[in-house]
């Protein structure tokens, strides 16, 4: 069979063009992929909102660059003599192929041409192995794939939030408050949600903006990693990005909403009690469907203290061992003192704005606070589960924060705490709300607490703070219509466990918050 050198040259040139195209394509692909990765890194670090469709666009620029580079590479004319020399070297042909090309270019007959053709005819069968895909091409292509994969991973894997800015904290609190509410998806609960999460009042605009962002960002905000939490614990001061000021107006609105909710429940319970008293004993064992529906509505509205809400649930799903009357009486007992005091103070409360929040009490009310605490301690320890509720300022002046003058230790007198089960927990024993019978007996020590509170009398509260990310809930004192909330430490512990925080570190977190609030808040 005659040696078709022209055909061989054509095939060789085509392969060379493809290889050249692949080489450039891999270069373009790798370069653009690296750029995409860098861009994605910047986007994630800067937390720029990224829509979902952008994920598919991650691959498009590298693909486009690779395609363009391939086209350019294929269009470039390879140097045939050098290609032939490469094939000669690879196949050990002693430069015969390239010499044959030279003879063909020279033209005319030559004794050497025939000899060379006869020698290379059988030797070039494996010429393709002389022009393999370059390792550099493979490496570049692989690097590009890795870059794209990393970029994609960056897009879909939530980054740990190093610290949330105060601007985003309100949104976070809003999300968290909704998470804490089991029935937050119910449309009827929307007003109550606003009532229990005052931060949402000022974040509506932001929420609308955030609706366009990906769910990935939301998961970023909620799923901070252990490293992030620990970094927050160790790297930031309490005044830096961890606390956010809560305006008195927001607390006032919150308190107003909570007061309305608790009053409505109390009135409903009183009506139930009256009906039970008026009804014959045989008919009084169950709630009517209307009453059940009303109770459910009140629960759905939200804003109720957990104990009250739990009691209402117990009333609706009454156990066999307890009667309706018993449960209703128990619930009304919770309002007992409130009901007595409300009649005398409700007018003042409505006329004078709530002066402070859970963290503020005006110095003029210290004596009144002591009286309340003494009364609470006699109510079988109910007050121990309740943080300090803010009371109205008798002077009618809004309390102001002394800010820099107020040391963290001042807050020991104004914290709320879940100290019922473990008084050693935040604010449990030392906080006024955590007063127990034993503590009442140690009155001198309690007097020293009063001394501590005097620091607050030297200045006025200007700002009040809620610790970022801390789940808050209304304190039972809110049943009296006063704005007060407390921290649910069990909820905090639950959140930390979900985030994989070691048990030992939970104590560190608790100690941290205790430290920054000197007793908890």
């Amino acid at each position, binding site marked *: 069979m005659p040696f078709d050198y022209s055909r061989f040259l054509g095939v060789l040139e085509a392969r060379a063009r493809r290889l050249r195209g692949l080489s450039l394509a891999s270069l373009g692909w790798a370069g653009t992929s690296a750029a995409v990765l860098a861009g994605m890194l910047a986007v994630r670090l800067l937390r720029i909102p990224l829509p979902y469709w952008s994920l598919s666009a991650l691959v498009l620029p590298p693909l486009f660059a690779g395609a363009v580079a391939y086209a350019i590479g294929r269009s470039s004319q390879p140097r045939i003599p*050098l290609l032939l020399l490469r094939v000669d070297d690879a196949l050990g042909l*002693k430069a015969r192929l390239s*010499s044959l090309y030279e003879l063909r270019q*020279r033209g005319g007959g030559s004794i050497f041409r025939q000899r*060379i053709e006869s020698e290379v005819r059988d030797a070039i069968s494996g010429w393709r192995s002389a022009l393999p895909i370059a390792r550099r091409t493979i490496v570049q292509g692989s690097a590009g794939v890795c870059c794209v994969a990393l970029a994609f991973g960056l897009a879909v894997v939530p980054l740990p939030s190093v610290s949330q800015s105060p601007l985003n904290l309100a949104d976070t609190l809003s999300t968290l408050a909704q998470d804490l509410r089991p029935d937050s998806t119910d449309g009827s609960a929307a007003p109550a949600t606003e009532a229990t999460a005052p931060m949402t009042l000022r974040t509506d605009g932001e929420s609308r903006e955030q609706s366009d962002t990906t769910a990935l960002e939301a998961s970023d905000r909620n799923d901070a990693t252990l490293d992030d939490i620990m970094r927050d614990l160790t790297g930031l001061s309490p005044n830096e990005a961890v606390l956010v000021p809560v305006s008195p107006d927001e607390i006032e609105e919150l308190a107003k909403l909570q007061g309305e909710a608790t009053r409505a429940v109390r009135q409903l319970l009183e009506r139930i009690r009256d009906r039970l008293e008026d009804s014959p004993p045989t008919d009084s064992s169950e709630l009517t469907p209307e009453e059940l529906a009303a109770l459910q509505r009140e629960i759905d509205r939200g804003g109720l203290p957990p104990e009250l809400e739990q009691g209402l649930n117990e009333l609706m799903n009454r156990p066999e061992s307890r009667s309706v009357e018993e449960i209703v009486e128990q619930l009304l007992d919770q309002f007992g003192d409130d009901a007595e005091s409300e009649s005398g103070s409700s007018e003042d409360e409505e006329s004078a704005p709530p002066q402070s929040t859970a963290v503020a009490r005006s110095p003029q009310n210290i004596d009144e606070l002591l009286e309340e605490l003494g009364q609470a301690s006699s109510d079988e320890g109910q007050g121990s589960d309740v943080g300090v509720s803010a009371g109205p300022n008798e002077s009618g002046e809004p309390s102001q924060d002394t800010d820099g003058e107020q040391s963290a230790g001042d807050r020991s007198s104004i914290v709320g705490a879940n100290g019922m089960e473990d008084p050693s927990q935040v604010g449990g024993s030392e906080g006024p709300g955590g007063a127990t019978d034993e503590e009442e007996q140690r009155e001198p020590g309690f007097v020293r607490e009063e001394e501590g509170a005097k620091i607050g009398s030297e200045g006025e509260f200007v700002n009040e703070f809620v610790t970022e990310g801390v789940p808050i809930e209304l304190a039972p004192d809110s049943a009296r219509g006063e704005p007060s909330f407390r921290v649910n430490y069990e909820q905090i512990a639950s959140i930390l466990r979900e985030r994989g925080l070691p048990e030992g570190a939970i104590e560190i977190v608790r100690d941290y918050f205790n430290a920054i609030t000197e007793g908890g808040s």
Partner: protein
Amino acid sequence: MITERDLEVAQTVFRRLTSSIEEVIVGHDEIIRAALTALLCKGNLILEGVPGLGKTLLVRTLAASLGLKFSRIQFTPDLMPADIVGTDIITEESGRRQFTFSPGPVFANVVLADEINRATPKTQSALLEAMEERTVTVGSHTYGLEEPYIVLATQNPIEMEGTYPLPEAQIDRFLLKANVRFPSLDELVAITERNTEGVGIRLPEPTATAEDILTSREVVREIPIAEGLRDYVARLLLATHPNSEHSPPRIREYVEYGASPRGALALILGAKANAFLAGEVNVRREDIRELFHAALAHRLVLNFKGEAEGVSVDELLADVWEHVPANA
């Protein structure tokens, strides 16, 4: 047009020539090949080595094998140019005196310029025209030299006393330069055996004619060399220049002037002849490598630093060979 028969004849002639020379010369295969290469390329060869290594014998053997006119010029410090090229002398013919040109020893086919660097540069330069243009000009007359023509010069190492380094212009006209090494033990034993027993050394009978040589030269020039190898040779040559982007660091440091374009011609032509002598039908990279040092070593001019530090040109060329990629 070269025919298949021409190729076969030429290869046969040179195989026979090589074996006849090797019957006399012990070892020095590379020197024999260099001499035949120079003959095939219409070039000249300079052999460098200490006295007594058989340089002169090699040239005489080559001339005898070729059956060509041979002349030997022993260069001495008092040798004059006219002693080489010839001169006009007054002759009397039929009672009439006239100047008649008396050709010098340069008028031969094979000229041995023995110890060429012992003559003064002026006398050395007398060979320039003969070596390059194959002509000799005396007075107003120019005389052509008969082909095939080849000058085979020998020289002692430059460091030896009483030597004059050849001018760059002249040494550049030598196609190749070969260093004659000292024979090995076995070769030395063979040399003593051949020279001390029997009738001694007998020069071989002629095995080739002038026409065979000329035909072989045509065959050699027809041997193809790939464009990629031409490009390679050019890059090698540029790499010997200190100001070239292709040159290795040591060339930039120690070389004053690199090889001239004549060096590239010598390398390509020499590679062709080398391929022919190897029985190949095209130039290979190995041919270039084998001729690389011989074709370029004498064309590099070291700078003062290179001379002062005694840098070896062969080492510099080895750097060049390693530095320049075969496929760019």
